[in-house]
C-alpha cells in the first residue's frame, strides 16, 4: 500500500528528530562502545518520556494506539543519531506478539508496563545463523524452558523475553521472565546493544502460541521488527549522506572542494539513490502491515535499507579520508551500527530467500 505522510506524521518526525538532536551526545555513545553491560539509558528515558514505548500499543492497554508508520518515523530519527539501542525495536516486537496472542492476563499484565517503559523486553528467536530456526533447540515443558540462545540483543538487562522454542517437536512462542535466567555478556563491536548469551534452563514462561499460529505470529513479529530496523537504517544512511555531502562542500584538495571531483560527487549521488529507494520501500512496508503482501514489502525494505546503510557507511568514511577513521570523529559509530542492524532480524541471505519464496513459492 502506498501513502503520504500527513501533518501528524510530519510532527512525529520533526519532534523526535528535534528531541534527539538536543539530547544525543557523541561522546557518551563513544564511551558506551568501550564498556560491556552499559546501554544508552538517556535515550531510553527520552523514549519513555516521549511516549515512544507506548506508541504502537493499543489504547485499551494504556498505549497510544498508533502503528508501524509512526514508530518507523521515530526509528528513523533514532537511526540518524545511532540512538535507539536496543529496546525501541524489541519492545515493539514483544508487545505486538502479546497483543496478538489470545492471552488476556499477559495483555493486562505486561502491555501497560511495556507502554510505561517500566519493563524492558527482548526477542530471542535466532539460533546460530537462523533468525527463525525450523526446529528451535530451546524446549518448553511444564511451564519451564530448557536450553539457551546466544547473542540476544538487549538480553543483559531485559526483564522479559519473547522466545522461539519448541513444545513436543512443534514450534512455540513463549514469554519468559528473565529474573532467574543465567546471562553471560557478549563483548561486541557495538556494546550498547547489551548482547547476552542466555541460559533459559528452569526459567518460567507463558505459552503465547503453538504450531502454525506460532510460526505465523513469529514471522509477523520478525518482519515488523525488520521494518522498524529498516527505518533506523534509512535514518542512519541519510545522516551519512548529509555528512558526506557537507564534508565534500567544505573540504578542499588540489585547490577545490573535493565535492567537485566526480569520484566523490558520483559516490554521494549513488548514496542518495540508495537512500531514496530504501525510504520508499520503508514507507510502503510500514503502510502494508497486516496486509497480504506485507512479508514481501518488509523484505524489500529490509534488503534495500541494509544495502543503503552499509554502502553509506563505507562510502562516507571513504569520502572523509584519514579523519573518517579516527575514534573521536565517530563515523565508526555508524559503521558499527550498520553492521549490527544488518545482522539483527536476520542477514541478507535469509531475506533474499524469504522474498523469493513469497513471490515464487519455491523454497531455498
Amino acid at each position, binding site marked *: 500500500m502506498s501513502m503520504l505522510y500527513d501533518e501528524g506524521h510530519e510532527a512525529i518526525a520533526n519532534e523526535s528528530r528535534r528531541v534527539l538532536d538536543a539530547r544525543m551526545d557523541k561522546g557518551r555513545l563513544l564511551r558506551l562502545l568501550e564498556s560491556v553491560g552499559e546501554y544508552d539509558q538517556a535515550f531510553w528515558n527520552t523514549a519513555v518520556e516521549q511516549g515512544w514505548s507506548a506508541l504502537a500499543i493499543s489504547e485499551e492497554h494504556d498505549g497510544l494506539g498508533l502503528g508501524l508508520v509512526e514508530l518507523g518515523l521515530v526509528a528513523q530519527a533514532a537511526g540518524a543519531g545511532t540512538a535507539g539501542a536496543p529496546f525501541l525495536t524489541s519492545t515493539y516486537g514483544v508487545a505486538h506478539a502479546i497483543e496478538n496472542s489470545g492471552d488476556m492476563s499477559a495483555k493486562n499484565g505486561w502491555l501497560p508496563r511495556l507502554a510505561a517503559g517500566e519493563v524492558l523486553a527482548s526477542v530471542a528467536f535466532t539460533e546460530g545463523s537462523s533468525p527463525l530456526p525450523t526446529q528451535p533447540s530451546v524446549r518448553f515443558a511444564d511451564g519451564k524452558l530448557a536450553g539457551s540462545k546466544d547473542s540476544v540483543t538487549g538480553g543483559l538487562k531485559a526483564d522479559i523475553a519473547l522466545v522461539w522454542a519448541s513444545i513436543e517437536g512443534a514450534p512455540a512462542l513463549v514469554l519468559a521472565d528473565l529474573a532467574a535466567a543465567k546471562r553471560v555478556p557478549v563483548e561486541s563491536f557495538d556494546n550498547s546493544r547489551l548482547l547476552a548469551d542466555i541460559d533459559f534452563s528452569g526459567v518460567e514462561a507463558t505459552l503465547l502460541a503453538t504450531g502454525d499460529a506460532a510460526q505465523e505470529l513469529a514471522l509477523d513479529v520478525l518482519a515488523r521488527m525488520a521494518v522498524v530496523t529498516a527505518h533506523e537504517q534509512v535514518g542512519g544512511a541519510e545522516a551519512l549522506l548529509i555528512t558526506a555531502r557537507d564534508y565534500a562542500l567544505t573540504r578542499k584538495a588540489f585547490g577545490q572542494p573535493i565535492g567537485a571531483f*566526480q569520484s566523490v560527487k558520483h559516490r554521494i549521488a549513488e548514496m542518495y539513490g540508495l537512500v531514496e529507494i530504501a525510504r520508499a520501500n520503508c514507507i510502503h512496508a510500514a503502510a502494508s502491515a497486516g496486509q497480504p503482501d506485507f512479508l514481501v514489502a518488509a523484505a524489500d525494505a529490509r534488503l534495500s535499507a541494509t544495502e543503503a546503510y552499509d554502502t553509506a557507511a563505507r562510502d562516507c568514511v571513504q569520502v572523509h579520508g584519514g579523519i573518517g577513521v579516527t575514534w573521536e570523529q565517530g563515523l565508526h559509530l555508524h559503521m558499527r551500527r550498520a553492521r549490527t542492524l544488518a545482522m539483527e532480524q536476520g542477514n541478507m541471505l535469509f531475506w533474499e530467500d524469504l522474498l523469493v519464496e513469497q513471490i515464487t513459492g519455491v523454497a531455498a
Partner: protein
Amino acid sequence: MTDLETYRDRARMWLESVASRFGREARMGLSVEEDLALGRQYMAARHDAGYAGINWPAEFGGQGLTHIEKVAFDTEEMAFGMPTGYFGISLGMPVPILMRYGLGEASEHIAWVKERVLKALRGEEIWCQLFSEPAGGSDLAGLRTRAEPDGNGWKLNGQKLWTSWAQYSDYGVIVARTDPAAAKHKGLTYYWVDMKAPGVEVRPIKLAGGDSHVNEVFFDDVRLEDSQRMSPVGGGFGVAMATLMIERYVATDSGGFGPHLDLFVDLMRKLEINGRPALSDGRVRSAIARNHAMRAGLESITTRAMLMMQAGMEPGPEGSLNKLVSVRSRQKLSEMAIDLSGTGGFHFDPNAPQKQDWGSSWINAPTGRIAGGADEMLLNTIAEKILGLPQDHRPDKGVPFNQIPA
C-alpha cells in the same frame, strides 16, 4: 471505487476492445512501414475514443483532464504493446512546446498551430526534436548549427544527430546558434522547421541492435520565416531546457524499459544449474530479490509522486532516479537471463520487442543508458541540482563560443 479507478477500468476496457486490431499479436512480423501505418490508424482511433491529449486543453483537441489520468492511461496502454512508439517524442515534447511557445499573436497563425496539434494527436503528422549534434554529445549548449539573419527571416545551416523518427517527421523543433560571439548558453535561438522544406536531408543511422529509428539530419541554406522562431533571439537555451524538463514526468518503468521481473522468474522456473532447479540457486535468488527490492522502491517513488500530484503537491526530486537505476540493472539482468539459458540463450531475433525478449533487451540496453541523459550526466544532475554539490570544472564557462578550442 475512486473516479481514477473508474477511469482506469474504462480505459482498460477500450484497450482490450481494440487490442486484436492494434496490439502485440497484430504487429508480429510487420515491416516498420506497415507498423507505422497501423500506428497512424491506432492514433486516430484513440483520438476518436477520447484517449488522446488526455491532459491537453480541449481547444487543442485534448481532453482537458489532469496528468493523473494521463499516467493512468499510459500505464494501462503499455501492457498491450500498441504501435505508439513513433509518436511518443512528437506528442511528448515538440508539440506541447509548440502550444506553449509557438502561438504568436496572429490569429491565422494560431489556427495553423491548432491544426498541427490536432493532426499530431491523430498520428497524421509527426514532429521530431532536433537537439543533439556530432560535436555535442551530452553538451547541448555546445551545438554548432547556425541560423543567420536572411532578410526578414533566417537561413539555417548545419547538422543534427540522434534525431529519433526524423525520417517519418513532417516538422521538428530545433535549437541553432545565432550569436557565435556570445557565451555558449547565450547565443542560441529556438525555431520550428518544416522537415520537407528544400535543403533538409535525413539519413537514418543503424544502431547496434540493427534498427534505424535515429537519424542524421543535414540543413543546407534552409529558409526559416521569423514566425517560426519560438524563443527570443539568444533565448533558445531556456526553451530547450523547458523541452527537456517535460521528459521528467513521462511515465516511468521500474524495469528500465526491459522485460518485467516476472518474465525472469518464469525463465528461471524452466532452467537448471548444475542439475538443480535454477530457482533454488542462491545466486539466482539474490538477483531476483535485489531486483525486486530495487524495482519496488522505484514504483513506490512513482506512486507517491502521483499521490502528491493528486494532492496538488510538487513531487520530490527522487523521481529522477528511475532511468539511471533501472536501465543499468536491466543490462546486467538481461546478460544473466541469456547466460543461464545455455543453448537457448544464443537464439536472437533483432526485431523482438525489448520488453518481452532478453536478447533484444540486452543489445539495446546501452542505448538506454545513453539516450535521454547518460548515466554520468544523471549522476551529475542529482549531485548538483538535488544535493548542491559543485559543478565540474568547466573551461568553456562564459567564454565566447567561437573562442572555445574545438
